[in-house]
């Protein structure tokens, strides 16, 4: 119990620069004023694909499970319409 109380009193800014910080990771789409996932918004979708054009897994981007499903669907729709490419082969 004591340990929990101590942890609660510390704010996030206090240990911002410490190398041992355990800052909580959060989903970028589940916050209050986070952007809406849409297949027409190519600029936003481009952040969640790798260099080769693959969809990045959610364990790297910290997107929640339900939002990752929406995101992957939106990317696939954008690919179908030719707004995004299936593969980025330009660096070979």
């Amino acid at each position, binding site marked *: 119990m004591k340990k929990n109380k101590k942890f609660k009193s510390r704010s996030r800014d206090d240990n911002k620069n410490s190398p041992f910080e355990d800052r909580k990771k959060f989903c970028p789409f589940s916050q209050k004023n986070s952007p809406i996932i849409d297949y027409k918004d190519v600029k936003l979708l481009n952040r969640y694909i790798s260099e080769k054009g693959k969809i990045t897994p959610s364990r790297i981007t910290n997107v929640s499970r339900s939002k990752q499903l929406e995101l992957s669907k939106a990317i696939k729709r954008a690919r179908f319409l030719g707004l995004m490419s*299936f593969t980025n082969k330009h660096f070979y």
Partner: protein
Amino acid sequence: MNNFEAVVLLSPEISSNVRSSCLDFLVKIINEKSGKIINNEDWGLRDISYKIDRYSKAFYNFYQIEIEGDKIESIKKTLNQDENFIRHLFVRVEKHQELPTKLNNEKK
């Protein structure tokens, strides 16, 4: 009645007269099926990121429609038979977004 979004790609080789008549044809079909068009937007000639039917560019058109869901399949069938329509996508949405779309702003 449900809300739908439609994106239509037209071939870049046809003249502007034929293109406008194609789009009128689409509007006519939708009105026949007792649907109505709330908004439409012209995205213009854009690059496709891969080749579709040997074309590397296409005219994009975007529609916001209110229509009964089971009538969409017959619209798709007629669009598939027309050669000028390269590709089309119908998506059901809960609520229509405000225009203009973010895609257009980015281009400018």
